């Protein structure tokens, strides 16, 4: 069993972007993604997840390093200015290189 390095990109943002983002992630080359519901606080204030307009989602994508960069660029370009969003990434070990 040999181990391969990929990048785990995590996006935390407004739930209203879920359907749009998931399409865009696939378009940009992700083979998959995982979404969990979240709440939180940031520069755009508290998002308590009690009703639609104030729900957050947490999207994880395991992807190659360069696609991770591509996605980060895209998100910064399109969403940072007007949406509650943070993005961070780091390397992870996976077994199936061609799956991600």
């Amino acid at each position, binding site marked *: 069993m040999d181990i391969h390095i990929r990048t785990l990109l995590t996006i935390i943002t*407004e739930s*209203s972007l879920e359907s*749009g983002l998931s399409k865009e992630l696939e378009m940009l080359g992700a083979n998959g993604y995982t979404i969990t519901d979240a709440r939180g606080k940031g520069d*755009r*204030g508290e998002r*308590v*997840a*009690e*009703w*639609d*307009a104030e*729900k957050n989602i947490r999207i994880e994508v395991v992807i190659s390093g360069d696609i991770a960069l591509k996605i980060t660029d895209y998100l910064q370009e399109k969403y940072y*200015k*007007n*949406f509650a969003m943070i993005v961070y990434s780091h390397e992870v070990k996976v077994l199936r290189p061609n799956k991600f």
Partner: protein
Amino acid sequence: MTDPIILFFLLGVIAGLVKSELRLPSQVYDSVSMLLLLAIGLKGGIELNKQPFLDLAPQILAVFLIGIILPLIAFPVLLWIGRFKRADAASIAAHYGSVSVGTYAVAVAYMGSRGIFFEAHIPLLLVVLEIPAIVVGILLARGLSKQTKWGTVVHEIFAGKGIMLLLGGLVIGAIAGSDSLASIKPLFFDLFKGVLALFLLEMGLIAASKLGALRQYGIFIAVFGILMPLFSSVVGTLFGIGLGMSIGGTAMLATLAASASYIAVPAAMRISVPEANPTLSLTASLGVTFPFNVIIGIPLYYKTAQWFHGFFGV
């Protein structure tokens, strides 16, 4: 006195102010809204099933007109007096041009508990009034720029939870009719006010959570959030009388005009006018106008409707 269910709203507000950890779980809040939307749609549909549909055309047109006028009046006020950015002014205007189903539900309860008659097809007007302001708002923010994906806008509006359930309920009610729906009435109609009480409890909590932002964004939002519905209610009242509606119907139309959206419009604006700050519009709509309407507005609009009817000797 307003309806006792308002006490649940106040309980929510108080719980929010004392920072209670009381919450209506989000999924339950979603379902409670769904029940209200469906129930309102079904009630309207059942009535449409009884009466000819066509002679409603003038009313539908009139209401559509209201939905265009109100945001066009609100916009300059917000832009020049309120000194908001264009996008924010347009977005807030759209919120106030559209309707709040929660406010409508409270009005239904108010009329119901007083046995006041109102035209049965009002829910249809509710649906109609929800839409035009969204389009006007986007145009005010963007002009006729090619940027705007109108396909997305239309989808956002009609595929949204609100319209889907209201229209769905209307159609189901209109097709099935009262008798064949008797078996689902225990859930959708008998529980209506109880469910509304739970909904208002959570709305109180949400309203209270907006007070912080309200302080931050200053007095204008508070004033606008009260004066705008008052003005809109007069517009609604006049249209109601012009359309020869009953006192109750006039009051309902006034309430619809006076109410500000917090479901359909915010969702649509977030997609089509993302640079508009949602906190501004929701603070005004949920933090000021919703409480004002359910506590003071509705009874007031009813009085006004009575007065005008008397005045015009209708």
